[in-house]
């Protein structure tokens, strides 16, 4: 039925790459004054982009190069359309649409342009058929997105943006280096499945890994996402890392090392998330953990696991946006996302709380919520891979994510200690504005619909799906896992073991470059400065002494000057003349 409605609309439209839709919308926006017009452009660009993707997916054949372009002797492939690209294209368009509803109140020009160019670049990268096009869009996402951090316009945000940009640009430069080496080795710039081996492929892998927040390369994520504006973080959470997941799924499916990288990624962030105070940073850690599941899926590389990665990326973008939206709504009213300063908000912000709980249930993979039908594809694939260690880590990480995202976020934001009871409750924040509730409501509805009716999503996946998520065993075991995690939370709270939310900074591996390396450089600088100073002092002293001594010897008052007879020069001239005479005699 949907096809019957959409096909005539799409065939009546000129075919334009979806990325160009966003670029054109940005160009158009430059001529539209701030107000409803701009907000409508921001809303319509993702809709038109999704329609274009639909057109490319149905009207044109899949897999072809739909937009060849000659550039410096290379054939670029601007539109490579297949099912893997399409599902990411759709979800990126949907995420941009939902974020634009949520950001309806934003009247900040840089943020509006950044949103369009960022989403456009991400979608462009998804359809890039060659590494050069990918590189251009890859850098596009980096440059556009940093303005969402700088839009906060504080000193801290400025520095954080700088750090973010350095990491993102580094990823792009490494990608370009890898691309050049690949071209030298193979003579091709096609962006297809690669095998790790040559330096070029390793560099490309590293570039993807930086954007995907691999362990030890992850800090930019937790550093920068809590530093953006309220709406900026919602937008940031959707694109960069999932673009990297897409790139890995396209370039390195079945690369075994990804299984272990992914498993590590699911594991370590949950420890940090438990003790982190800033709830947006808790979400950034859990985002990192969810990326781990997707990376494991890519590493296993079976049809089931790759389907799992694509499905999980789709669901994840929705529920993670929803969680960032709900915490953002709390920030919009209270000015903070710190667990230690929130609590008791359910009274006046109950609908925000409800949407947050739906997001939490989805990320925790409760049956009937979206995470359940996508994460289980990956966990089942890992079990079928018979790797008990990875499987055990994934199950633990599933319980852990419920613990810190599913329980901690709603509990400390909306319940726990009531921090707004003073002044007779006069300072209790009002419920989030209508447009935010609307954006959260639509996203929450999608999370539930996908959870209850997974088939439409399964139909979008790259491979045909032969998987039934709702089996008795799966539902019961998942509920056991989650409810016992909740019970553990309850026991730890009642016994007072659960760590309270404290105003704090937790050191992560970024300490090495933000503190240790800085101290090391300062230490070396101090020593070098000292050595240089001592050296120059020594040389000065030696020179001064030498000059004085020479002066005392040869100066007008010197010993040598005094004892030399006036006739000594005449004698020397006579000797020289004699020597010359002898030499000329000998010569003859």
């Amino acid at each position, binding site marked *: 039925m949907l096809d019957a409605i959409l096909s005539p609309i799409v065939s009546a439209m000129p075919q334009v790459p979806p990325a160009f839709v966003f670029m054109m919308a940005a160009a158009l926006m430059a001529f539209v004054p701030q107000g409803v017009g701009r907000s409508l452009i921001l809303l319509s660009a993702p809709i038109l982009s999704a329609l274009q993707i639909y057109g490319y997916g149905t009207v044109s054949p899949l897999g072809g190069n739909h937009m060849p372009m000659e550039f410096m002797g290379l054939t670029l492939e601007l539109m490579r359309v297949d099912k893997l690209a399409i599902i990411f294209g759709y979800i990126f368009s949907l995420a941009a649409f939902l974020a634009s509803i949520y950001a309806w*109140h934003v009247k900040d020009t840089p943020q509006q342009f950044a949103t369009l160019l960022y989403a456009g670049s991400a979608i462009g990268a998804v359809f890039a058929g060659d590494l050069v096009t990918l590189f251009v869009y890859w850098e596009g996402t980096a440059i556009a997105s940093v303005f969402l951090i700088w839009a906060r316009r504080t000193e801290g945000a400025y520095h954080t943006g700088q750090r973010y940009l350095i990491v993102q640009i580094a990823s792009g430069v490494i990608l370009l280096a890898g691309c050049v080496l690949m071209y030298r080795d193979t003579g091709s710039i096609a962006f297809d499945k690669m095998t790790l081996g040559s330096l070029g492929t390793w560099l490309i892998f590293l570039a993807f890994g930086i954007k995907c927040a691999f362990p030890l390369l992850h800090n930019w994520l937790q550093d920068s996402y809590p530093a953006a504006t*309220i709406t900026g973080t919602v937008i940031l959470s959707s694109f960069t890392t999932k673009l990297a997941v897409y790139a890995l799924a396209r370039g390195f499916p079945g690369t075994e090392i990804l299984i272990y990288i992914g498993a590590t990624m699911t594991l370590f962030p949950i420890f940090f998330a438990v003790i982190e105070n800033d709830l947006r940073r808790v979400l950034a850690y859990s985002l990192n953990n969810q990326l781990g599941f997707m990376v494991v899926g890519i590493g296993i590389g079976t049809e089931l696991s790759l389907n799992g990665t694509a499905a999980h990326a789709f669901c994840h973008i929705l529920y993670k946006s929803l969680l960032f939206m709900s915490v953002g709504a709390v920030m919009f009213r209270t000015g903070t996302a710190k667990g230690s300063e929130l609590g008791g908000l359910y009274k006046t912000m109950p609908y925000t709380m409800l949407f947050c709980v739906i997001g939490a249930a989805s990320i925790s993979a409760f049956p009937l919520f979206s995470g359940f039908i996508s994460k289980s594809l990956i966990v089942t694939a890992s079990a079928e891979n018979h790797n008990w260690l990875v499987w055990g880590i994934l199950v633990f990480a599933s319980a852990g994510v419920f613990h810190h995202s599913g329980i901690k976020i709603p509990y400390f934001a909306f319940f726990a200690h009531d921090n707004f009871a003073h002044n007779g409750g006069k300072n209790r924040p009002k419920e989030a504005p209508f447009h935010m509730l609307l954006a959260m409501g639509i996203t929450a509805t999608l999370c539930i619909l996908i959870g209850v009716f997974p088939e439409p999503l399964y139909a979008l996946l790259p491979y045909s799906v032969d998987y039934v998520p709702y089996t008795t065993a799966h539902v019961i075991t998942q509920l056991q896992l989650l409810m016992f995690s909740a019970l553990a939370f309850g026991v730890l709270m009642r016994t007072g073991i659960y760590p309270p939310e404290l105003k*704090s900074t937790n050191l992560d591996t970024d300490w090495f470059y933000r503190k240790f390396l800085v101290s090391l450089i300062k230490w070396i600088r101090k020593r070098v400065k000292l050595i240089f100073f001592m050296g120059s002092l020594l040389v000065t002293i030696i020179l001064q002494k030498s000059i004085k001594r020479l002066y005392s010897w040869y100066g007008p008052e010197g010993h040598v000057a005094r004892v030399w007879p006036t006739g000594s020069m005449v004698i020397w001239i006579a000797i020289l003349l004699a020597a010359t005479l002898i030499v000329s005699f000998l010569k003859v």
Partner: protein
Amino acid sequence: MSENNDPFKSQYPALGRWLMWVEKPNAPALIFWAVAIICLGLILLDLVYHKHSHFMIEDLFGFYGFYGFIMCAGLVVAAKLMRKIIMRDEDYYAPYVVDSEEHPKFDMNPETVGSIRPSDNEEDKN
């Protein structure tokens, strides 16, 4: 604050007012025991269905429940211990981070239930 002397209660959304039962003194215990009973029920369900297991350990009675409980408790205890090593003041990286800064006013709209209403504004002017 108990629910009876909340002067702004009438302004709370209906869902918020309805949920205020969680502030009753025995509510946390009630929720906890409800969760515990659900857990018990879920464990007992293990007796009545067949698992399609990939690993032997999955066939253990109530494996998923106990695994979830033990690992989560371990997670929290380990994270709490981590605090001893990695926790620093909020302004540790200041002024290069946003953590110790106020959120800029232009990016928020801090309306409260006790916000000055138009009528109050007029009184202020008078």
